[in-house]
């Protein structure tokens, strides 16, 4: 349960809001690199944290993220001509470089200095892995680039997709640290999904449907350990890291690639879900990569030319009641990602958390909300840099492990939950 004012604080991320300013302390995914595939390709509309922008890749391969609207008459630069190391508004020919600096106003006299005084708001846009990242905060406090392992392994070891989710970011994010829903909502996928099935850990998941949880602070956010019974005298632990504000990893299964998410607010009623898979020590196989492209695992089939899922609220998520009855899927919705999204979107654009009835098993969510709220207020009132800004906080992994019952997952898995280049993930 959250009071209305706290719910508003956590869900509103526009400019000037406490959570909006918190998000603006971090590098966040802005778009996929595939959306700007070559120099001088068409610009792309980007809306993040309730700000409308266009992204483009200029003639020299440099990336820019600038205010969507021309400073002259407010026409959208999405219609712009991307040519000659700049983006030109097709209305009257005003031209901007990747920093948003106006570099040409054709109606002015030759050699006029007028355009030097015209500057669109712009943000840095940097390619790391499959993702173009931006930082929308004060340049004076711009942190070093992210060091998440998934964007630093070689290209052949990683794959990232994104999908539009029609809900506030917090609804989507909270699913990422809510391990107790897996045994129910995703039970079909554990048996059949090519990126999940076959792992020994799945057996523990299915045999013990009432996990116990341990929630502990980490430098950048939290570790949430979900514990199930394994063989006599042992527990099967699944350890989920959360790095503030919105990065989570799913504990691995066998030698399958490791996956996770980054949730980025588009506005207060929509968000992007970036979903990734990577393997720390080997290339993804052709079969694995194709399964990801086909929307298996944490990925989604999207409508060609868009990042909207094929199964979406406009077609009732293609719900199949017969598949539900047969047990192929638990909810009738196919695919891990849309099983989550369908329920999170069903709550409404911004769920009223004052109506919740939480239980102790929701402690990870309770603690995460508390950390977000405190960080947003500490930043607003005292200028405190929040956890997760420091790139060292990004070097975490999820893990799955069987431990003797007396052992603490935190003590036993200190190395397993740290990035260790050249060493495989800890998995069961």
């Amino acid at each position, binding site marked *: 349960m959250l009071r209305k004012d706290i719910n508003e604080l956590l869900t509103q991320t526009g400019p000037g809001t406490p959570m909006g300013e918190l998000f603006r302390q971090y590098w966040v995914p802005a778009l996929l690199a595939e959306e700007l595939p070559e120099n001088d390709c068409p610009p792309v509309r980007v809306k993040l944290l309730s700000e409308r922008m266009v992204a483009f890749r200029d003639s020299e391969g440099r990336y820019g993220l600038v205010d969507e609207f021309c400073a002259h008459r407010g026409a959208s630069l999405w219609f712009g001509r991307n040519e000659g190391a700049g983006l030109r508004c097709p209305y009257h020919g005003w031209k901007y470089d990747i920093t948003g600096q106006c570099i040409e106003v054709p109606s002015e006299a030759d050699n006029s200095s007028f355009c030097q005084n015209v500057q669109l708001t712009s943000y840095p846009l940097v390619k790391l892995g499959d993702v173009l990242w931006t930082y929308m905060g004060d340049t004076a406090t711009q942190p070093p680039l992210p060091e998440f392992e998934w964007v630093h392994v070689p290209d052949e070891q990683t794959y990232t997709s994104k999908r539009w989710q029609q809900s506030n970011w917090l609804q989507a994010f909270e699913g990422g640290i809510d391990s107790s829903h897996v045994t129910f909502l995703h039970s079909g996928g554990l048996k059949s999904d090519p990126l999940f099935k076959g792992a020994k850990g799945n057996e523990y998941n299915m045999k013990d449907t009432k996990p116990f949880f341990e929630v502990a602070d980490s430098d950048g956010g939290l570790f949430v350990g979900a514990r199930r019974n394994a063989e006599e005298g042992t527990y099967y632990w699944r350890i989920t890291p959360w790095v503030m504000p919105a990065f989570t990893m799913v504990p691995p299964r066998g030698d399958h690639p490791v996956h996770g998410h980054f949730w980025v607010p588009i506005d207060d009623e929509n968000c992007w879900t970036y979903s990734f898979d990577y393997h720390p020590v080997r290339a993804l196989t052709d079969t694995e990569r194709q399964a990801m492209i086909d929307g298996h695992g944490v990925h989604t089939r999207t409508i060609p030319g868009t990042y909207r899922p094929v199964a979406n609220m406009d*077609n009732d998520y293609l719900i199949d009641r017969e598949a539900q009855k047969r047990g192929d899927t638990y909810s009738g919705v196919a695919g891990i990602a849309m099983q989550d999204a369908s329920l999170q979107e069903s709550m409404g654009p911004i769920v009223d958390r004052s109506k919740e009835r939480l239980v102790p098993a929701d402690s990870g969510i309770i603690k995460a909300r508390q950390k977000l709220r405190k960080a947003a207020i500490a930043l607003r009132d005292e200028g405190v840099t929040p956890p997760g800004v420091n790139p060292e906080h990004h070097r975490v992994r999820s893990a799955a492990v069987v431990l003797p019952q007396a052992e603490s997952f935190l003590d036993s898995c200190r190395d397993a939950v740290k990035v260790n280049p050249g060493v495989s993930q800890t998995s069961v």
Partner: protein
Amino acid sequence: MSLSESARAASASESRFRIDVPIAPARAARVIALDDRAVTVARRLAERPWAHARFYTAAGIRDTDGLLHGLNGGISPLEEALTGTDVVVVLATEDGGRAAAAAIGRICRQRSITTAGVVLGDGFEADDAVAALRPYARVLLLTADESDAFELLTALRV
């Protein structure tokens, strides 16, 4: 094109028609502090307005026959104090409450009472208490932030 049922139902305008009734507190909680520092935290928590939560200290309890001391006075046998509850939140800051943690856990398991442990501090001072609670506590929250205990109780509507 007409909206699908899901699209219409998830819209902000449709949310106006959700049934809106007050949510009655559903938990009869017992909050039990296992050691002296935990008692200090529990006293601060007990000053807040709760619906049905009752606060105790278990300092000195070694087995299920032990006595709980109510923070507002009164002494109850552990078995009796846990009668009628459906959630027990145990507060610990050090290992001194290990035996009490195990005793409380055993009773809660026998009676199907959901148990949550909030271990305050850096975690190292209460290793044994954590180990004693682990078999029984549905959730262990290991935190340096005392206000997490308040947030947990608030979220549980106790």
